Every structure is written in structure tokens, then in C-alpha cells.
């Protein structure tokens, strides 16, 4: 039972208006693993996440959750979308938004049980949101909103948490906090995490696996298996170097090659 992957992405392909967005992308996520989906902006990360969630149909290929078709286990997935705009004029407390993660889809009159209320409090503590539990979510800072959204996604006990660019538009301090938080929550609650980002360095200490996406193709494995000059050069179709400096990784293309699709490619001045 335990060796059935939580998520299998099997040769997913998507084309739009004659352009290939995703080309036979495959990877697996096992229980409790922390996976980074790394690629530059516009490379298809959001499309891939939406396909995994069943919000969009793939052209080819299949997504399986616990070995079964997606529809069977949709409830097992939690999602933090990119750019959730929360209005400061709406009287919705952090606590309310987390509770809607439990029953936001439910019609009817049922009141929340004691267990459900306790679960909400537990999640508020898990993401360190106790301090602003009674504040309007719309009035919180980006990092604080991100925590509340993570609690909202986790409160229904998903097996896999998907996050679309949760670190974009955060200051470096908040990035570290959110990464540490996700790592801790993943370990404490036995949740697998799939997180998309256009920058991998903040994730290097916590990533079990990486899915490196460029030009519709993906390479996946441990960071050491994937973030290598030969693997990434094959993926990009031209030579790139992988430099490891002070625990950070830089993917560098030769001067003159198009480096636009390299995530967080450093600006190189002339040698």
C-alpha cells in the first residue's frame, strides 16, 4: 500500500493553438515527499498544476492519485492558487477562511462540530497564524495571507498539497519562513508537497525531488540527479553549466545563447 505513489503524472501532453505547452511530462510523488516544480515564467507550471487538480483536461496522458483515476481522489488534493486576491473590505477573518476549507463546498444548515472547530484552531497554530486569526484576511500582508491559504488547503487533511508560486512577491525573509513552514507541516502531518517556483535556491534545503520544466519537457529526480550540467543541457537543447557556490546553484548558459527560459538566470557581465 505504502509503495503506491500519491501522485503519478503519466506522459501529460498539452497543445494550445498549435503550440506544444507540455510534451509527455511524467513524474511521481510518494508519501511525505517535498517536490519542487521549477521552471521560468510561462513554461507551463500553472497548466500542469491545473491538470493535476482536474481543472483542465490534458490533451494526452493521465493523472493518477493513489493509483486510481483522479476523479476518485479529488478530495485528497489541497491547492493554494497563485494570486488569490483577498478584499480588505470583506469581513472574513483568517479563522473563517480556514474553516471554509472544511465545509466551503457544503450546502445546508449543518453547524460546525466541536471537532471541526478544534481542527481549525489546530491548523491556525500549525501555520503560526494565531496572532492574526481574528483579523480580516484581506488586511494581512502577503506572507500572512499565504499562511492562512496554506491552512485553508490543509484543514481537510489532503494527501498532497499543491502550491502555485507561493513564494513569488514575498520578501526574502518571508520566503524562508514559508519554506520552513511547509517543510515542517509536511513532516508533521505526513502531507506530500508539490510547489511550483521560478527560483530553486530557497527550496534546495527541503526538496526531496525536483521536477525541472523547460520548453514543455521535464526532468525529474533528486536535486543531485537533475541539477547537473549534462541533464539540463540535454533538456535545454544547448549547453548550460551548473555552478554550485556557497550552497546555492546557478544555471548558466553560454554567452550568446538565449537564456530567457532559464529560471532566475543571473545577469552576466562581460568576462
Amino acid at each position, binding site marked *: 500500500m505504502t509503495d503506491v505513489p500519491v501522485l503519478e503524472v503519466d506522459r501529460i501532453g498539452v497543445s494550445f493553438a498549435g503550440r506544444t505547452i507540455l510534451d509527455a511530462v511524467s513524474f511521481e510523488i510518494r508519501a511525505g515527499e517535498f517536490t519542487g516544480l521549477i521552471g521560468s515564467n510561462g513554461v507551463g507550471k500553472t497548466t500542469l498544476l491545473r491538470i493535476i487538480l482536474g*481543472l483542465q483536461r490534458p490533451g494526452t496522458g493521465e493523472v493518477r492519485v493513489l493509483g486510481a483515476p483522479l476523479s476518485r481522489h479529488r478530495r485528497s488534493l489541497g491547492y493554494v*492558487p497563485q494570486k488569490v*486576491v483577498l478584499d480588505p473590505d470583506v469581513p472574513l477573518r483568517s479563522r*473563517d477562511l480556514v474553516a*471554509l476549507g472544511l465545509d466551503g*463546498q457544503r*450546502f445546508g444548515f449543518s453547524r460546525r462540530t466541536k471537532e471541526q472547530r478544534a481542527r481549525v484552531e489546530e491548523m491556525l497554530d500549525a501555520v503560526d497564524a494565531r496572532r492574526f486569526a481574528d483579523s480580516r484576511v484581506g488586511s494581512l500582508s502577503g506572507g500572512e495571507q499565504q499562511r492562512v491559504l496554506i491552512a485553508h488547503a490543509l484543514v481537510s487533511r489532503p494527501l498532497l498539497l499543491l502550491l502555485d508560486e507561493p513564494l*513569488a512577491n514575498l*520578501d526574502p*525573509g518571508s520566503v524562508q519562513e514559508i519554506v520552513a513552514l511547509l517543510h515542517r507541516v509536511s513532516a508533521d502531518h505526513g502531507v506530500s508537497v508539490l510547489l511550483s517556483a521560478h527560483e530553486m535556491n530557497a527550496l534546495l534545503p527541503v526538496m526531496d525531488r525536483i521536477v525541472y520544466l523547460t520548453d514543455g519537457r521535464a526532468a525529474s529526480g533528486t536535486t543531485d540527479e537533475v541539477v547537473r550540467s549534462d541533464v539540463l543541457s540535454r533538456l535545454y537543447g544547448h549547453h548550460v553549466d551548473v555552478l554550485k557556490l556557497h550552497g546555492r546553484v546557478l544555471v548558466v548558459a553560454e554567452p550568446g545563447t538565449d537564456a530567457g527560459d532559464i529560471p532566475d538566470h543571473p545577469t552576466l557581465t562581460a568576462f
Partner: protein
Amino acid sequence: MHLLFEPGFFASGPVRTAVVIGGVAAVVSAVVGVFTVVRSQSFAGHALTDIATTGGSGAFYLGFNPLAGFIGGGVVGAGAMDLIGVQRVRSRDVATGIVLGAATGLAALFLYLDTTSSATTGATQQILFGSIFTIDRSTVPVVVVLSVVTLVGMAVIRRPLLLHSVSPELATVRGVAGRGIGLAFMLALAVSVGLSSVAIGSILSTALLIGPAAAALRVTRSIGAATVVACGLGIATTWLGILLAYDSADWVRSGQGLPVSFFIVVLTFLSYLVTGVPAVRRLAGRPGRHPAPADPAPADRAPADRAPAAPAEG
């Protein structure tokens, strides 16, 4: 007591009918209004009042109860707006504008016919600005049943509706059918506009829909609290408006009371102004920002998509 409650106020049959219908309409408007404001659909609410005017004036001309026209017009309008809503934003605005124009033109025709056929200008006043003291008592059961159905419906859909109002994306992920929720809410909006059209007239019904809800949202911390406060404000302004209008017969020389709608709208506007005063909001305990100890809030919003990696220079 005499100063406020003129003799005969409670004994008057029309007053009792007005109090019941006004109160019920205020409650439905408040409950629906809170979500209307949260969903930023005030314009849709206003659009529905125009279409309800057409329905109400048409029903009056044909000799039906205007309530049937208000609600019938609103429901048809809600359905039409939902159909139009499928298209792109710009064409949706254009189409809404054109449909509204046509509906209002039709209302002009019906109101003209109403006035000429019944040889009174009362029809225009009654449809557009309401005349709560002249409502037939037989309308009361219909109003109450419609209100109960709407309130029960709102209670049933409240959680998916709230989640969808906060973020359509979060709702979709949880399997909420946004289309169905949106349509159900538009229907509730149509009924609510119809009920308050009876109370204060079709043109002014938006005031009862948006006013108390917007005021309540300023001073509360949760949707539940906002709904309760909006109901309270709505009932208070409506009943006080009825009382003042009844009393006003003694204020003017003609002995004719001033329109109820005028008082209700003025009171609603005042309540909105008062809830905007910072001291009132603090009194209500509405949190602005939470007291954040050494929280780098402004920096948090700054784009920082580049990690502070040492650029390879040499």
C-alpha cells in the same frame, strides 16, 4: 410617547401591513445585500431594479399585482444577465447597457399607459417610489412566503456562496459549481429587489439592498455578524421611516404625509455615513490591521523574485 407615536399609529391597518412588509423586505434585502456587496454585484442589483420597474409597470397596466411584475421582471432579468455573463467582459457591459435601455424605455411606455388609463399620476409614484401604506393586505402572505423561501435558500447556499464570493478559484478547486451558485444568487437578488420594490419603490430598492449591508460591513468582523447588523439596520430604518412618514402628516399644512421612501432612504444614507466615522468603527471593534509586532508588512509586498545570490562577475 405621544411625541413619537402619533395617536392611532398602532391601530391603523395600513400601518400594520406596512410594518410587516417593510420589515420582511428589509430582512431579505439585508441578507442578500451583504453578499451583493461582498460579490461586488451592486451594479447587477441596480440593473435588476430597472428591469423590475418594467415588470411592475407592465403588471399594473394589465391589472395584476405589481409585486408579480416586480419579481417576474427581476427573475427574467436575472436569467438574461446570467446568459449574457457567459460572454466576454466588454460585450457583457454593452449588452447589459442595451438591455437596460430597452427595459427602461418599455417602463416609460407602461408608466405612460398606466397614468393615462387610470387617469391618475399615482401609478408612477407607486411603481418608482413605492407607497407602502396603500398595499393591499392580501399581499402580505405572498410576501412572507417568498421571503421565507429566499431566506431558507440563502441559508442553504451560504457556505459555497461565501467561498465563491471570496475567491472563485478556491471554490472551483473544492468542487463548487460557480455557474449554479451565481445563478441561484441572482434569483435571490431578483426576489429581494422585487420585495423592496413593493416597500420603497423599484427605483429606490437598491438603497435598501446596498445601504444597510454596506454600513454593516464597515463595522463587523464576520459575514454572520454583518448579516445580523444589516438586518437590524434595515428593520430600524424601515420602521423608523414608516413612523416618521406617518407623523409627517402633522408637519405639513396639506395634512398629506410625506413619502415613506424618502425617510427610509435618508435614514439609510445617514447610517452609512455614521458607520464611516473612524470613532464608530473603533467602537465596533472592527480591526484595521492587527497589531503586528515588528512585522515587515510593507517589505512583504515588495517583489523579491530574485534571491540575493552573488552574481557571477569577473
